[in-house]
């Protein structure tokens, strides 16, 4: 499996609403973030959930977001605070 992104790459999370078992949190869909880690590749959970083997494996990344990206100031956080989530490559596009 080729690694699609490098550490430091800017990415946007897809903002689609497909049905089924999705492990991309709703509050991060459409948000811009930065790749901070590549965890390797794993069976696709959206297929595993339905009894399929989830192959081919897909890359999993830790993506870092500024709090404002998700909440636009409507939360209780400081300027420098961040969120990370583990997101599969199929949900990420380069920006």
């Amino acid at each position: 499996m080729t690694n699609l992104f490098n550490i430091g790459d800017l990415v946007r999370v897809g903002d689609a609403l497909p049905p089924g078992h999705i492990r991309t949190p709703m509050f991060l869909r459409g948000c811009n973030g930065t790749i901070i880690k590549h965890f390797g590749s794993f069976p696709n959970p959206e297929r595993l959930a339905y009894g399929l083997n989830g192959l081919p494996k897909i890359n999993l990344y830790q993506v870092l977001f500024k709090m404002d990206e998700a909440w636009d100031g409507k939360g209780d956080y400081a300027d420098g605070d961040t969120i990370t989530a583990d997101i599969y490559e199929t949900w990420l596009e380069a920006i």
Partner: protein
Amino acid sequence: MNSHTTDHEHEHDHTVFQKDIPEPKEDWEFLEIAIRELLIEKNVLSAREIQDEIEAWEKKNPEKGAEIIARSWVDDDFKNRLLNDGNKAVAELGFTVESLKLVALENTDELHHMVVCTLCSCYPRTLLGVPPLWYKSREYRSRAVREPRAVLREFGTTIPDSVEIRVVDSTADCRYLVIPKRPANTEKMSEAELVKLITRDSMIGTAEALDQDGQRS
């Protein structure tokens, strides 16, 4: 408490039932009961096996996690190995985290990690035991990512605004273990003494480790 009188000879064993199961109300609770009863009826599992498994999980506690953290505090090389490859490093201490990737997060003077699973309740159970009820609550899961500082204040944890709070949402195949900051004035303490300062919450990131006297800092 057992209401059984104790003025007769006890020859039989009392089954210990899980105390915290309320009456089922929600659809998914009835579904769980139906599946459990079917598994028993079809001889896939026995009621005793299910209960034994629940009890085995309930006996697990955060001690293993604390041993790992204490080692990382006294041994920088181990800490680096833990940060580079969590599964491999904890295997040195005889612990396994099967089929999941263990990721350690180091808290520093500039960065404070706090772990949540907004989608469900992912948690490094093999090292920390069963997660606390609040970790699985909708309230913690929704608020931790949006108002982490308010949540931390409710835990009695104050992190200065100059320190970045990084909320780590455990959404996939990784399990996160926070390495809390080593408290001041603990240089002379043994690894076994340090273990006592490392609480479950400090490894989730909702608290810091206890201070050198074992008190909340």
